[in-house]
């Protein structure tokens, strides 16, 4: 699910970036903020940072230490994406194995759909493995799948979310999104 979040960050600016009047431009502070968000990528509480949507305030610079760093407290709003247990999302099937399917969903690279949570589907091995249902709907690589989020896990090391998925309910399973190229996910 997408969110609009109000955040604050302390942006460090070195004194060498001040101009002759001892001022630093708002654009420069914003560029530093974007750089830090780029490195941070995501947080466990708010999800993946997609874009800064508005700048609310920039505080007065405080000198941190003798190294010449100044800190500006910046308050801004940001669009984020975070998965939740119980949510219905769409993902693209990436890897098909006998035990299940790995899906990619937006910024989330690993959503695992176990074969045990696809009770109407059976595995069809071959050059292009797939899961086929009794109603002949197919989950193969590149197919968009509507799934229920059974669980979400945050990984500190890679700063990523991972999800456990299920299609064992009505209205879940492969879908076709007209005019959409799944490979862009």
């Amino acid at each position, binding site marked *: *699910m*997408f*969110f*609009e*979040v*109000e955040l*604050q960050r*302390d942006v460090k600016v070195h004194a060498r970036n001040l101009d002759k009047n001892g001022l630093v431009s708002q654009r*420069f502070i914003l*560029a530093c903020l*974007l*750089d*830090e*968000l*780029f490195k*941070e*990528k*995501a*947080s466990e*509480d*708010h999800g993946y*940072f*997609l*874009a800064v*949507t508005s700048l609310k305030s920039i505080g007065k610079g405080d000198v941190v230490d003798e190294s010449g760093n100044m800190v500006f407290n910046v308050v801004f709003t940001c*669009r984020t*994406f975070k998965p*939740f*247990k*119980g*949510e*219905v999302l*769409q993902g693209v099937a990436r890897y098909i*194995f*006998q*035990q*299940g399917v*790995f899906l990619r969903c*937006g*910024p989330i690279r*690993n959503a*695992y759909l*176990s074969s*045990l949570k696809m*009770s109407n589907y059976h595995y069809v091995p071959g050059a292009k493995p797939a899961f086929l249902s009794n109603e002949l709907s197919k989950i193969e690589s590149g197919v968009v799948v509507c799934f*229920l989020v*059974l*669980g979400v*896990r*945050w990984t*500190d090391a890679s700063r990523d979310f*991972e999800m*456990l998925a299920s299609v064992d*309910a*009505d*209205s879940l399973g492969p879908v076709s*999104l*007209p005019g959409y190229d*799944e490979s*862009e996910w």
Partner: protein
Amino acid sequence: MSDKGGRMFTLPTKATPKSSLKSSAGKDDSSAKSKKGRKVQFGTEGSPDVQFNFSSGKSDGKFATPFGKGGKGDKVSNGGKAHVAKESQALELRVESELPENVKCLMDCEAASVLEGIQDQMVVLSGDPTIKLPESFYSGLQYSKGGSSYTNPQSVRKALQSLSKHGVSNSEICMIANTCPETVEEVFALVRSLQAKKSRLSEPLKDALGELAKLKTST
């Protein structure tokens, strides 16, 4: 891995480690976050905790999962209906209770409209090498555009906002819009937390879905 029973997916409970960046949404995040472990159980009872673990890309085709080795799954359950009811309660959407303050849920179409606006500015922004967009921006934008099939996000919000006076939360409204349901039964199947209010929501939902159908883009 257990051969039978006990498939637990335990979510980590450790606090977020401190970084040089202070993140605060008007309130200390760690205090707002629940410290309780959360478990999703979809097997038989009496199981030890098994950590959900998988590796992507480098395995031999074997993935350590808490589901055992291709068993009958949760069909072989001694709990029967009680277990299914407990599982469906655990899978209900509880976004509002888990979110920090100063956070607002958005529909995919609302997110898409703002992200597309930023993308339109990319021609100007890309000229400045100091401006960096988060790497999730493009995948987030594609996801929001892919699932969104409405002409006007404001009209979608207006069509569904009437449900809030019947006790539907903002996150549930967003889920309804994101899943593009065609029937009331589909809504109750996908947004399980609404099933408890089925009797009084059926009519308002029917009206809201009728309005939504007019706002869908032609396929």
